[in-house]
């Protein structure tokens, strides 16, 4: 079983079935990392719940002046971010997509086979070509 982070979260939200809970506890019984993860999640949830609720002052919304914000106000920022994202995608795609090589394995084999055939040292007996009939295929 891989580390079931999503199951831990679901368990804390009370969304697991009895069987799923049983599987989770079987795993955490032997996995210190998952136990620590569960405890950390519980601490964060408890901390969030312990924050005081703040009441909004009465009339706050009523006193506020509506302001019209032009849509193009942050256009430069968004255009820059979009351009950066596109550049990042291109860079990653370029990096992850193998660049087509100038030579294939068949090209290598053909050139070696052709050159060795002219070798005065046993060339005719050792020449090879790619994609010959294999006996074992």
């Amino acid at each position, binding site marked *: 079983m891989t580390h079931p982070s999503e199951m831990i979260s679901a368990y804390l939200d009370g969304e697991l079935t009895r069987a799923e809970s049983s599987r989770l506890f079987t795993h955490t019984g032997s996995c210190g990392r998952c136990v620590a993860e569960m405890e950390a999640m519980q601490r964060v949830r408890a901390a969030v719940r312990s924050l005081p609720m703040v009441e909004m002052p009465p009339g706050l919304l009523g006193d506020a002046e509506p302001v019209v914000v032009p849509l193009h106000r942050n256009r430069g920022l968004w255009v820059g971010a979009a351009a950066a994202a596109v550049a990042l995608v291109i*860079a990653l795609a*370029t*990096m992850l997509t*193998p*660049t*087509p*090589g*100038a*030579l*294939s*394995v*068949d*090209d*290598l*084999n*053909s*050139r*070696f*086979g*052709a*050159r*060795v*055939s*002219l*070798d*005065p*040292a*046993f*060339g*005719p*007996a*050792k*020449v*090879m*070509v*790619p*994609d*010959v*009939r*294999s*006996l*074992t295929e």
Partner: protein
Amino acid sequence: MRKVIILVAVFTLLPATTASAAELQEILERSQEASYSAEQVISCSTPDGVRDAVVSLEQAAGELRVSGEVEVSSGSGGWALVREGSVINSASVEAGISDADPTYRVDNGSAHPFLNRKAGLYRLYAGDVLRGELIVDGATGALLSVVTYNSDGNVYCDRRFIEFDPTPPELSAATLTTGETLEPSDVTSSLPESLGDFERLDIYEDGDEFTFAYYSDGFFSFALFQTRTVVELTDPGALTLEGSVYARSFSPGQVTFSWETRDGGMALVGDLPPDMHAEVLEGLPQPFAPGILQRIWRSLFG
């Protein structure tokens, strides 16, 4: 006439004395002039399993044709690779190996009938290590069988004719287009002039795409490619040397290595037995794994 006298002497003196390198050279030159059609079986025992194949050969008037999807046509100082009647690559070849300090000595020219033909068996030794056995047809000089050995005495590759017809075949004219012919280059290259016992015989450049050098030790040989990008092998195995990992793939009669270097890629194709791989690779730029930023930079700007 002198060649014939030498061959007759070799075949009739049984057990024969040691054949000289010059005699062997004459035998090999004669084998290149032989005319025949043949089916050859190649079977190699590699660290990754057995690799075998059947190849059809035709040779006439010094020109050799080997059939496949890509046909090799060679002779008269050059080669052409032909696919569906069109030349896809060709080159001229001038160099030969120096015989100043031959790596191999030849022993035991003895009668050894093969395919119901009179033939002679020759053994090649590097020092005391048997590296090859050749069976040469007495009538034509054709090499009927070549067996190569690992240094531990086990057979690496066995190439033998299973059918042999000494009738000169009629080869169709090769459609050479001189404009595409690569010429041996004399430019200074970072590819070494020698690697162990292997001597660089000639070197070719194809624009900015790759440099290709051919090495031989007098029996085994390989081609070394320096490329802009790494050549991808299909389902490769791996050879690890002092922490450096090389992609390696065996095919019948050949081994191919490919790895990334600081300047691009390198690939080696040859007929070397496995015990020779480390010695050759250790004399070349080591595999290099670029970081993510270097990889992006190289992908974008070469």
